[in-house]
Structure formats: C-alpha cells, structure tokens
C-alpha cells in the first residue's frame, strides 16, 4: 500500500511539473531578473542603489508614487462604500433578481482597460455625448475634464465597484436575519445592530476587499494609459514608458520602480493581514 501511495504521489507531482515550469518561466524568472536589474547601473552593469535613490527622491517618481497611492486609496474607498450598499441591497432582492444583478456585476467587472477608457471618452470626453448634452442644456458645470485626476478617479471607481460587489456579497449574505431579530428583541435599534454586530462581522470582508481594490487600482495600467497617456503621472505609466515608450529603454530604473510598487503592495497586504486578524477575533 505504501509503495502504491508514494508512486501515486510521484505521478501527482509529475503532473504539476508543467505548471511549475510555467510559473518559473513567466513569473519567478522575470521577477528575479527584474530584482537583479534594479540594482544595476544604466546600461546594465555593476551594482548600485542609485536607481532606488532616484526612484524615492526624484520629484517625477515621488509624484508618480503619491498619485498612484492616493488614486488607489480614493477609488478603493469609494468602491468599497458603494459596493457594500449595492451588495446589501442585492441580499434583499428575490433570488432571481439577485442572480441577475450578480451576473451583471460579473460582466461589468470584466469591462475594464482600454474599452472602458474609450467608453468614458465617448460619454464624457471633450466632445463626448454627455459633455455636449450638458453644454447644450446649459448645465456646463455637470461636464468635467475627463483627462484629469477627477476623470481618472471616476473611471477607477467605476471599475472597482463591480469587483467590490462580487467580493463583499458573500460576507453580506452571511449576515443572518435572526441576528437582526434577536438584536431588536434585546432592545437594539437598526443602527445599533449594524454598529455592534453587522459591521464587526463584515469587517474582515470589508478590509480584505479594500486591499484587493487598492492593489487592483495600483496595478491598473491600460485604463489609465488609454485615458491620459502620459499627461498624468502614475507609477504604472512611468514604468511602462521606460520599458516601451522612450527612445532608449531604461530597464534598470523601470525595474526599481516596479520593485517599489511591489513593496507598497506587500505593505498593503501586510496591513490587511494584521487588520484581518484583529477583525476575525471570535469569528
């Protein structure tokens, strides 16, 4: 039996080999190369911390980091608040309507990147449908410049919401009607229920979803690039332009910025993990 068990295990491991090869070739190897490259001089020689020093001090890059973090925090915050309310309203629907709304959210969560940016341009661009309409109606204050921080924030929040809904919905679904009933019979108002039971129970889900939305926005490239190309300074756009946009590619600088991006996401995940542990106490 033992022999058969171990041979079975060998077969199982063999079946995993292609997966690990793939992982190594397209994730691990580039990551290692990137890490090595980030410590090289321009031209790919020697060892230096200069790329990092530049990345963390040069106003061009610090602005990019700040812009990216702020935009991601903002869109994740707006996304989480709106998706909590939307997902909660889904739980009150009939099963059929609920499933339909979840399907729509699922579809919308895949509608991002360049097509989404173009969608917004058609509606809100300089000559966009709604922009022109608002101007004609004499409501120019409703039209805004899509190609600024405001526009980016709107588009980012837009693609965050369906992702947020899909991620937070299971937690909301787990809030049981009997808890509300028991709380009300014990003298709690609806607000007190949410304050003392609803939100604490949801907190792990909210914190987890927030960090995923933050990472989602930090790494978003295509949407931002299609919308503002290099008119707005964001970390992924900086990295992209160094790799493919300039006359001479600057792989080393790009690598160090990518590592910085990676470190920011790691810190975000670490904070998320700590908060989860706090929030999960007793769940």
């Amino acid at each position: 039996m033992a022999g058969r068990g171990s041979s079975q295990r060998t077969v199982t491991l063999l079946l995993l080999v292609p997966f690990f090869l793939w992982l190594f070739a397209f994730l691990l190897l580039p990551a290692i190369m990137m890490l090595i490259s980030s410590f090289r001089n321009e031209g790919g020689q020697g060892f230096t911390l200069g790329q990092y020093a530049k990345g963390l001090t040069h106003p061009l890059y610090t602005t990019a980091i700040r812009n990216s973090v702020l935009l991601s925090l903002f869109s994740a915050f707006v996304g989480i608040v709106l998706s909590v309310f939307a997902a909660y309203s889904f739980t009150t629907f009939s099963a059929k309507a609920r499933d339909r709304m979840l399907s729509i959210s699922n579809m919308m969560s895949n509608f991002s990147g360049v097509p989404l940016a173009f969608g917004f341009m058609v509606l809100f661009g300089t000559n966009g449908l709604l922009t022109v309409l608002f101007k004609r109606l004499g409501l120019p204050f409703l039209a805004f410049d899509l190609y600024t921080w405001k526009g980016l924030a709107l588009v980012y929040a837009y693609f965050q919401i369906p992702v947020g809904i899909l991620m937070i919905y299971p937690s909301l679904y787990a809030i049981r009607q009997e808890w509300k009933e028991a709380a009300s019979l014990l003298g709690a108002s609806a607000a007190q229920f949410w304050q003392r039971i609803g939100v604490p129970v949801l907190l792990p889900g909210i914190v987890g979803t927030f960090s995923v939305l933050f990472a989602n926005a930090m790494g978003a490239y295509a949407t931002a690039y299609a919308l503002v190309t290099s008119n707005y300074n964001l970390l992924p756009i900086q990295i992209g332009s160094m790799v493919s946009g300039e006359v001479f590619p600057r792989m080393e600088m790009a690598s160090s910025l990518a590592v910085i991006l990676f470190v920011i996401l790691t810190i975000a995940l670490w904070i998320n993990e700590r908060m989860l542990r706090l929030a999960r106490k007793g769940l």
Partner: protein
Amino acid sequence: MSFVNIRDVTKSFHRNTVLNRVSLSIEEGEFITLLGPSGCGKSTLLRAIAGLNPIDEGSIEVGGRDITHLPPRKRNVGMVFQSYALFPNMNVFDNIAFGLKMDGLGKDRIRAKVEEMLAIIDLKGKEGRYPHQMSGGQQQRVALARSLVKNPTVLLLDEPLSALDAKIRRSLRGEIRQIQRRLNMTTVFVTHDQEEALTVSDRIFVMNHGVIEQAGSPSEIYTSPVSEYVARFIGNYNVWSREQLQGRAFRGVPGEGAMFAVRPEAIRITDAQAQAQAAADTAPEGEGIVADGKVSLVSILGNIQRYEVEVSGLRVTVDTLSGHAPDRIGPGAEVKLYIPAEEWKPIRPSA
C-alpha cells in the same frame, strides 16, 4: 384576566391565511406549547407575539399592556431561536450582556446579572468562549440566558431544541422547564414534536391550518383527542370511521359517532385459545368492544411491544409493555382484542 391575551389574531401572506382569528390566553408563570406540523401557523403566532410579524387583525396584550402595535424592542419579550442566533463576534459574556447594554445599565450591574445567569445555565468559567467554540446545546443555553437576563414578561421559544441531537434535546428540555419554574417565567414554546410538548407543557394548543384545533393539559390532549387531526398527530392512535368498522368482526361498537380513536396501549390482547380456557378470569365483555383478529407483525420498540393485528382486513395497532404480553402471541396467532368502553373515543372527522 389572564397574563397574556391574544384575541382574534389574523395574518395572511399573499392571500394565504396563516392565522385565522386565533384567540388564546396564558396565565402568569404558565408554560404553554403551540404544537403542530410545519405550516400550521405556530411560528407565525409566536413571531406575532414578538412583533417580528405584524398582524393584520386582532390584539395582543401582555401583563395588561397592549403591545399589538409596538416594535419588537419595546415589547420586553425574550425569544430563543432554533438556530441559536448568537452574535458571532461576541463571546458568551457579551452575548448575554447585550440586552442589558442596550438598556444602558452600568458595568457592575451588568456583570452581576450576567454572572447570575451563567450560574443558572451552568456555564460559569466559559464566559470568554465564542459561539463557534461551543456545542449546540451550550449555545442554546447561552441564547436562553441572553433572553432571560432582561427579565422579559414572556419568553418565546421557537423550536429551540430541533437542531440538537436526541440526547441533548431531552436533557435540555428538562433544564429549560426547571429554569422556567424557578423564575416563574410565562413561556410560549413552539414545537412539532408531540413527545416534547407532552413532556414539558402545562397546557398544549394543537394548531392546524391557522386555527387552534384543541387546547388542554398534556394528559387531556393525549387521552382525549377531539378530532381526527389531533388523534393522528398526537401519537399512534387507531383511527377508524364507522364505515370502516361496518361488517368487520367488532362487537359492542356504540351506536353513536362517525369516527373513533383508540390508544394502542388501551387495547387488551389475549390469545384466542387461552381466552377460551380461562374465560372466567377475564373482564366482562359487555362494557367494552371486542374484536377477533390475527397477528400480522410483532415489533419491539424498546420498552413497548407493538402488535399489528388484522381484524377482518382492518389493521389494529396494539401496544403492551415489553415482557408483559403472553409469549405465545407471535405472527399468525389468533387473538382476541378487548377495548374498555371509556377508551373508545368518538372524534370529529377532519377534512
């Protein structure tokens, strides 16, 4: 004037009448049970008392106070749910203390009251545990304590034992009854389990299609069902219509009544041959109903021995205490059945 007065309560869901002019009253300190199969309206009535289901018509009065239109949190009723409904983010102490905090009590008073409750439910030393760290029985005891600590005017128990396994169920129902007696707590218990209802209640209300079919003490309900529905629901009653009995080997059937119920344990079973030999010892047959039949099946249900007897094609269930019936009666045996006249209960046929 009773402590709880429910008058003409009517409730419909989507034109489906779930409670149809239900009236009942409960004395202070009484333990009553709403008994019936699912869909009979018992939980809806309980939730109406709690204020969780608003009613269409009627009134509910508790302790002289009309609570018909009060929101749940103003009613001061306690409720225990089948699924325990403990707050998962709070430990035992905080779960029990929740209602007291909502009332704005001081920390010291809360601690004293919670500790008193912990002693009553026998969970001292477990106040730091979270619901997921406890067994179902323990969780339900915490839920009970959480309701009782606010000293509610009425305690409502919505199938509190149904999610537990048989052994815990039996011990917990005894415990609930004991605590209820000690605190003299007016209690409404909902269950579909007739054994549970018979064991714990002062009075039972058997419900059917949104009306109360019969109300009475456990022994009244058990020994004198008024309708076919109650007789069939409450135990293993033999239920026969007059048409079914006609032309069959029953002698001495009373001339009145359209339908009858007989408890299996009220029927005396004797070996037909032995009966003939010792005719002098038996009870006079004139005061009861006598039937001749043939045993088709004998089974042991623990302390009960059950015979299925065919009386000219009609099945009669007879129970005796195990070890108290003549050994010779096995499948195929010719037997004589004797039913005392007072055990032959005329009942109302149910639709």
